[in-house]
């Protein structure tokens, strides 16, 4: 049995593949706004969400996406699974594979875990976030949101602010936006900036004001307090003053700039509460886009394995 394909990361996708997925997501965006928010497309198909890391929004989003396509969706989280009894990732995955799902959606704290699984199973694997590596559906939903608001992706100035080092969101977004020739800027404390970040094709800044100058799109990243070990930040208050997206700093961006945040937000830390609720914020648009984008991804990868991939 061979799977139709995998979505392991933005890396390896072409611009036209990204555009095709975003166009497909437009179809499903419309479905979610109908009186009956469900289509029979994936009737009889199975999707298993396996989350080895806490997540509410991504898991719910994948779950709703599967259900709106009429697939059978099962969620497994590590706190309630045999993983707590010492089962290895390999055995967990082989067990799930034996139940014949069509797609496994995997979130795992280790970078590369979905790739490892994809190489060993004959099931389509969708990466729902692996360590600090990639979060492809987040980058796709961000791109979808930006394209709807700005009418295009090509050539935009996008500033990604905050904890770039621990952020798979930043990495996937940078990879995607570079496909569209965007001027991608990253900014944050030196301690939270990966070495050789420029290898992603982005420009790195030390001062938020400079990085925001003329930006069309501002992405605030969550300060991942669970991943911050040791003295990477002096204090959250100082961080907020220097790198928080607020009325004073946002004024450096274009007047019609939009503000994104992958959630969950730390209000008053990386993003000011007033900005988060303000007219420039598209945070809730991102959530709505998330379901549509994940429907597109499941639709593309849950098809019959006998068919050749893409065409």
């Amino acid at each position, binding site marked *: 049995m061979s799977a139709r394909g995998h979505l392991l990361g933005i890396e390896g996708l072409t611009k036209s593949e990204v555009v095709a997925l975003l166009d497909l997501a437009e179809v499903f965006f419309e479905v979610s706004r109908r*009186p009956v928010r469900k289509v029979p497309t994936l009737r009889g198909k199975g999707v298993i969400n396996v989350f080895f890391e806490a997540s509410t929004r991504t898991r719910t989003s994948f779950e709703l996406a599967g259900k709106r396509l009429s697939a059978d969706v099962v969620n497994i989280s590590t706190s309630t699974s045999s993983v707590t009894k010492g089962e290895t990732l390999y055995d967990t995955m082989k067990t799930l594979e034996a139940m014949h799902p069509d797609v496994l959606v995997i979130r795992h704290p280790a970078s590369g875990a979905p790739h490892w699984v994809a190489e060993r199973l004959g099931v389509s694997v969708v990466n729902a976030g692996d360590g600090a590596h990639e979060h492809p559906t987040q980058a796709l939903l961000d791109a979808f949101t930006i394209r709807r608001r700005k009418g295009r992706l090509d050539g935009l100035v996008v500033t990604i602010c905050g904890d770039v080092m621990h952020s798979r969101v930043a990495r996937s977004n940078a990879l995607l936006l570079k496909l569209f020739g965007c001027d991608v800027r990253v900014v944050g404390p030196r301690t939270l900036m990966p070495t050789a970040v420029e290898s992603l094709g982005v420009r790195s800044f030390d001062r938020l004001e400079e990085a925001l100058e003329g930006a069309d799109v501002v992405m605030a990243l969550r300060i991942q307090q669970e991943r911050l070990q040791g003295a990477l930040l002096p204090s959250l208050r100082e961080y907020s003053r220097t790198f928080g997206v607020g009325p004073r700093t946002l004024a450096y961006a274009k007047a019609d700039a939009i503000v994104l945040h992958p959630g969950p937000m730390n209000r008053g830390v990386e993003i000011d509460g007033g900005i988060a609720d303000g007219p420039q914020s598209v945070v809730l648009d991102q959530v709505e886009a998330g379901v549509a984008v994940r429907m597109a991804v499941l639709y593309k990868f849950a098809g019959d394995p006998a068919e050749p991939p893409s065409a």
Partner: protein
Amino acid sequence: MSQGKPLLDRDGVALALSALTTAISTGVASDRLALVGVRRGGVPIAARLGRSLPGNVPVGAIEIALYRDDAATALPDPKIGPSQITFDVEGRDVVLVDDVLQTGRTIRAAIDGLLDYGRPRRIWLAVFVDRGGRELPIAPDFVGHRMGPEVIEATRGTRLVVDMTEGTESVTAEPRK
């Protein structure tokens, strides 16, 4: 069927369109009429009919790829697009419009799709060309052009292309890719 010679030329298309318009306007006596074209072939025909029918008839479009009986096994269609139904279908007389009727499977899917937008009073079916070959118990209410048995036989296995480009309208049989 020799290629190049259309099954219907510009005049033939005009004739079929006017037959369809007349049939609908006399057949559906309703002040709650709406047209819904089946994406993609039915959409330009629904637009034409909308312009020639009396009154201000709302026109929408429905995508059926998500409702196909082979949706999960067929390749994801790169030409799939969103449905556009901006009016309330509740209680309306909706005329589904498609370019070519053959197996009826598309229409089955379109009916399912339409019902997800509400409960019309009645759904009618208007097709531009009926080429026979039904695989489901579906019959059109209005037909622009009904192909004869010889032509159906001669065009077996071909793809009927209905071109609604203003000024160069035609219906041709082309070999399947």
